[in-house]
């Protein structure tokens, strides 16, 4: 289920998440983890062993889990509410809206195994609607880190951010894209590769595929810019506008339905302020078939080769 990449260089971002969370919890006794029986899948065994009182497992009860998180925040705690993303965001969406977003509570929502990480388990276990659902809510930044370094940086950022947020993490192995000293900035895109012919915008597990696509394009004489856009809300409108101006075409790639996610968010900026041709790659509004996560990404046109091909097709639409 890992990326099309040398296995030895792939890392599960959950490991960076829990290592960072444990370090933060060591320094701040108010940090707690809340989960729904997902101690293992959220990789919270180490946290539980180090801070047994601060691992709050409410059982298989996601609505309750998010409400409990909001109550803990009211009582001065800094809760990281961790669960498989489809159940966290789908089952408890109204709690996220009322108890976290509308009530402006300091709850860190951590969607584990998001996207199609549970590829073989079927569409009930896919979380390819969560950008759209959470992005529609005020007060909850939506963040999808691309590698273990950005994951750790985002978890650290969340601890000092006063307010709610949604961290969308995967369990798929991904290679490092960022230097170890990378600092996460909310609402800021990262230039992974510069180029002038076309821009590829991606996040999460798609970011390194976008970089690989740009490498393929370079071998064909196409200069592609690659932006990592972990922050889906708020968006870095300036980076999108610069990309539109400099490259004249934007391709988005996401492990999400193309309705309401990263591509839609980018398109909103593009139509409002810098109209250029766009192509949105993602899951085309269907429930995905059975398959390993990386296979599904390939099937939906997001292999590095297919991304590169979509980029060249898109470039033909440039004025």
């Amino acid at each position, binding site marked *: 289920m890992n990326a099309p990449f040398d296995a030895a260089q792939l890392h599960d971002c959950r490991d960076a998440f829990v290592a960072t969370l444990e370090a933060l919890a060591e320094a701040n006794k108010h940090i707690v983890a809340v989960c729904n029986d997902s101690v293992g899948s959220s990789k919270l065994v180490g946290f539980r062993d180090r801070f047994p009182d601060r691992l709050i497992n409410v059982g298989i009860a996601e609505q309750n889990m998010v409400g409990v998180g909001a109550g*803990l925040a009211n*009582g001065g705690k800094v809760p990281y509410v961790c669960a498989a993303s489809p159940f966290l965001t789908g089952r408890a969406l109204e709690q996220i809206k009322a108890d976290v977003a509308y009530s402006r509570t300091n709850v860190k929502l951590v969607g584990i195994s998001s996207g199609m990480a549970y590829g073989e388990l079927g569409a009930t276990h896919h979380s390819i609607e969560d950008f759209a659902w959470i992005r529609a809510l005020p007060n909850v930044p939506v963040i999808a880190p691309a590698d273990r370094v950005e994951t750790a940086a985002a978890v650290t950022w969340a601890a000092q951010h006063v307010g709610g947020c949604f961290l969308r993490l995967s369990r798929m192995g991904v290679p490092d894209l960022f230097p170890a000293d990378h600092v996460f900035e909310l609402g800021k895109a990262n230039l992974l590769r510069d180029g002038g012919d076309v821009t590829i915008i991606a996040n999460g597990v798609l970011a390194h595929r976008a970089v690989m696509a740009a490498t393929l394009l370079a071998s064909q004489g196409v200069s592609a810019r690659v932006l990592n856009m972990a922050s889906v809300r708020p968006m870095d409108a300036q980076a999108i506008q610069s990309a539109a101006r400099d490259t004249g075409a934007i391709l988005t790639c996401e492990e999400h339905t193309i309705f309401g996610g990263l591509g839609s968010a980018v398109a909103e900026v593009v139509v409002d302020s810098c109209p250029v041709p766009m192509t949105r790659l993602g899951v085309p509004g269907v429930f995905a078939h059975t398959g390993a996560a990386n296979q599904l990404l390939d099937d939906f046109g997001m292999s590095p080769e297919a991304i590169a091909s979509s980029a060249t097709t898109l470039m033909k639409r440039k004025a």
Partner: protein
Amino acid sequence: MTPAELRRIANRIRRRDVQAVFEAGAGHIGGEMSVIDLLTCLYFHELSVDPADPLDPERDRLILSKGHTALALYIVLSEKGFIPKQEISTFLGHRSRLNGHPNRVYVPGVETNTGPLGHGLPVGVGMAKAAKLDRRSWRTFVITGDGEMQEGSNWEAIMTAAQFRLDNLTLIIDHNRLQQGASLADTNELAPFAPKLAAFGWHVEEIDGHDPAGICRAVSRATGTPDKPKCIVAHTNKGHGISFMSDNVAWHHKVPNVEQYEQAMAELAEAAE
């Protein structure tokens, strides 16, 4: 504060509530009459809260989970000094912070935004757990409607509260036997509540929810069982205190006309004497 004094305050709050619903042309008058004695006894007798420091970390927390009766809470908060009394006249008005459901961001004294039912108890469990983690003595109270207990999220929280041994948490069920469109019995009968909560491991009290002495006794630290969350089943009447509204499902969110308003105010004034 004596039961007689609490009755006087509750009567004053009822009159202000009826007036505000009449003037706003909307509200949930039946459920407000039902819950006002509970709110009055909590805020004027039991809760440790300070309008000068509404976010004091050591304060007691109260969540009105039946958020549609926000007006009753707003009036209690105004009587306590959290918001100006004259602001009640803005209820439901354009850009008023006093909308139909309480908002903690704008209204001091409100702990969490409620409105959709079944949200308050899980949040209350989190509050009580936070106090336990810090070994603090402040307490958490959650008031739900009885129809609201049909929401499954409440039962998730009921399990968790017992599992976490939250004896610093009190759930008060405003048991007026009526929901929006019909009686509980004709919709989804949950009563009797007491054996259900007891079966989930809670300490349970049953009281007359309009008797200040009984309410004060039940919400005090004097009643309860160590390591068990406490549930108070408060037997109440929807529309309590106004003859033609009492126990009448039609008054869930009906607005009195002029004659009804005058009669209601006359009855409440008479009761105050």
